[in-house]
C-alpha cells in the first residue's frame, strides 16, 4: 500500500488516476446521456429519444401559452406540453417523456425568484470556497506545491 502514497513516480500515479477519472467521465456520458436526453437531443433525434424520460433543470419559458410552452436552455428551444397557463419569462424545471421531438410533461416545477435566489446561494458558496482556499493556501509551500501543516 505504501507505494500508492509515496513520492516516488507520483506524476505517473496521478496521471494514471486522472486517466481513470477521464474514463469514468466518458462512461457517465455514454451510459447516462442517452438515458436522460437533453433538450437539444430530444429535438435533434426525435426517433432515438422517443419515449425516454427527460429531466430538464430550471430553464426559461421563452413562449408562454395554455397547456403548452416553449422552453429554452443553452439557446436550444423545445415545445413542452403541460396543463395550465404558462407565462413567458418564467423559470421552470420539467420532468417528462419525449414524444416526436417534443416533451409531454409529467411534472413541472416553477421557480419564482430563481435568478436572485440562485445568485445569492452561488455568491455565498463562492465566498465559503475562497475562505477555505485562503486558509489552506497560507499553510501551503507554493514552491513545493504541497500543503504543510505547522502542527
Amino acid at each position, binding site marked *: *500500500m505504501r507505494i*500508492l*502514497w*509515496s*513520492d516516488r513516480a*507520483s506524476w505517473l500515479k*496521478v496521471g494514471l*488516476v*486522472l486517466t*481513470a*477519472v477521464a474514463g*469514468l*467521465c*466518458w*462512461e*457517465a*456520458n455514454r*451510459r*447516462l*446521456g442517452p*438515458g*436522460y436526453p*437533453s433538450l437539444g437531443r430530444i429535438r435533434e433525434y426525435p426517433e432515438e429519444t422517443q419515449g425516454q424520460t427527460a*429531466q*430538464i*433543470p*430550471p430553464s426559461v419559458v421563452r413562449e408562454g401559452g395554455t397547456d403548452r410552452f416553449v422552453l429554452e436552455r443553452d439557446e436550444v428551444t423545445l415545445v413542452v406540453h403541460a396543463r395550465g397557463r404558462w407565462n413567458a419569462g418564467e423559470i421552470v*424545471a420539467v*420532468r417528462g417523456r419525449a414524444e416526436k421531438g417534443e416533451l409531454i410533461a409529467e*411534472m413541472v*416545477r416553477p*421557480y419564482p425568484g*430563481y435568478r436572485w*435566489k*440562485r445568485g*445569492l*446561494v452561488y455568491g*455565498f*458558496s*463562492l*465566498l*465559503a*470556497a475562497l*475562505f*477555505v482556499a485562503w*486558509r*489552506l493556501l*497560507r*499553510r*501551503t509551500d507554493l514552491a513545493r*506545491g*504541497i*500543503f*504543510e*501543516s505547522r*502542527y
Partner: protein
Amino acid sequence: MADLVTHYLTARLPAARLSRPVQAAFVAGVMLPDLVGKLLEVVLHTANRFYVPSHTVLGLALYGYVASFAFEERLRPKAWLALWLGGCLHILVDLFKDTMGSASSALFLFPLAVEPFEFGLYDPIHAIWTLPIALASVAAWEALARTKGNHVWE
C-alpha cells in the same frame, strides 16, 4: 447543490476532534465535489454528464487520491481517507434535496447503479432560506472554537 456554507458547517462540526492536517483534508473534501463539478460543468463546459463522477463514491475516491498529493507524504493515506469521507458527507447532505432525480449526487453509486435516488426533502433553491441560519451557525461555531483555542483547523 446545497450551499457551500452549509457543507462547510457539516464538515467543521464532526472534524473538530481530528488532528489538524486531517481536519483540513476533511474540510477540503466536503468542498471537493462542487468545486470539481462546477469546474467541469460551468467553466470547461464539458459534455452532458461528464460532471457526474464528481458526486459519486467511486469518483470521489479517485479525485481524492489526486488531491491527496497536495499533502506531505507521511499524511497522504489519512488525507486521502479524510478527503473521500468529506466528499461522501457532501453527497449525503445533497441526497436530502429534491431535484426530481436530476442532481449528480442522485447517481452516487455510479457506475454500479444508474437509477437516481434522493430523499427529496427540500428544493435546492430553498437553501436561500437556510443560508442565514448556516451563516449564523458558522459564526457561532468559529467564535466558540476561538475561545477554546480550536479555531485553527488547517
